[in-house]
């Protein structure tokens, strides 16, 4: 039997000019985060909150919000549902850790390789996103720690504001991540001038 050695490839590995920058805007792929979904089973809402608090000392956030603590971030994705992000290396298996923490009170599914995670930053980031994102991203409407699932150019996207200025992240499905990146580049060329 041949001995194969397979190398892990991030969703956008090989994409031309991924870590690219424009005046006031830069995009890069985040490849060191594990991602898992957490969906509360019916009637177990209080238990899920209590287990999260006991294990991670954080309250799963309400609609449209994120919460961080203990090396992980919860992003609200739906009614009693969250995506959980963490440095995989620091935890030794996010999915296993969540399963152990929540047992049968919630459904846990590894999502790490299903989503491309893009980091967008720079003072022109909102100007770029204005061309793609149907949501109002003004700080008054979308403050630090806000997260939302929507579509951009008909592609699913979960957008989060990560700091109090202009560092956003976008999770978008792996299968269409190349197309998403293309649209992002077009928007950046248009908003910031072609590189």
């Amino acid at each position, binding site marked *: 039997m041949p001995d194969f050695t397979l190398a892990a490839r991030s969703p956008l590995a090989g994409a031309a000019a991924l870590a690219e920058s424009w005046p006031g805007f830069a995009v890069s792929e985040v490849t060191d985060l594990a991602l898992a979904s957490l969906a509360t089973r019916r009637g177990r809402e209080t238990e899920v909150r209590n287990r999260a608090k006991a294990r991670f000392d954080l309250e799963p956030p309400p609609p449209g919000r994120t919460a961080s603590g203990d090396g992980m971030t919860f992003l609200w994705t*739906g*009614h009693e549902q969250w995506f959980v992000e963490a440095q995989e290396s620091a935890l030794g298996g996010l999915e296993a850790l969540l399963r152990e923490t929540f047992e049968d009170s919630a459904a846990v599914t590894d999502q790490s390789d299903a989503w491309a995670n893009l980091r967008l930053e720079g003072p022109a980031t909102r100007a770029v996103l204005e061309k793609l994102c149907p949501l109002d991203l003004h700080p008054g409407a979308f403050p630090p720690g806000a997260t939302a699932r*929507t579509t951009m150019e008909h592609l699913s996207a979960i957008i989060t504001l990560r700091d109090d200025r202009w560092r956003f992240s976008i999770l978008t499905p792996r299968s269409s991540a190349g197309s998403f990146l293309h649209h992002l580049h077009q928007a950046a060329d248009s908003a910031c001038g072609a590189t």
Partner: protein
Amino acid sequence: MRIPCPLCGERDASEFTYLGDAGPRRPDPTAPDAAEAFHDYLHLRDNPAGWHVELWYHEAGCRSWLQVSRNTLTHELGEVRRAEDLGLDEPSP
């Protein structure tokens, strides 16, 4: 048209998919008048010019089913509530 999702806030209609009238309930197939009841359920729908209570799915957002009051003449939106909160997710007979 923008629909105020109770969880996500006001969102563009392109994020939602439409099911239809929220009123009809699937009849009991074991009832003696089941054939007639299913005929009504399938074919006899109201088509009001004005307020209509209908079901929408926030597919590209929080994936909640919503009961939405909408004026079919003006697209003005009235009360929007999660179907689950209204007990509309209970299985039909």
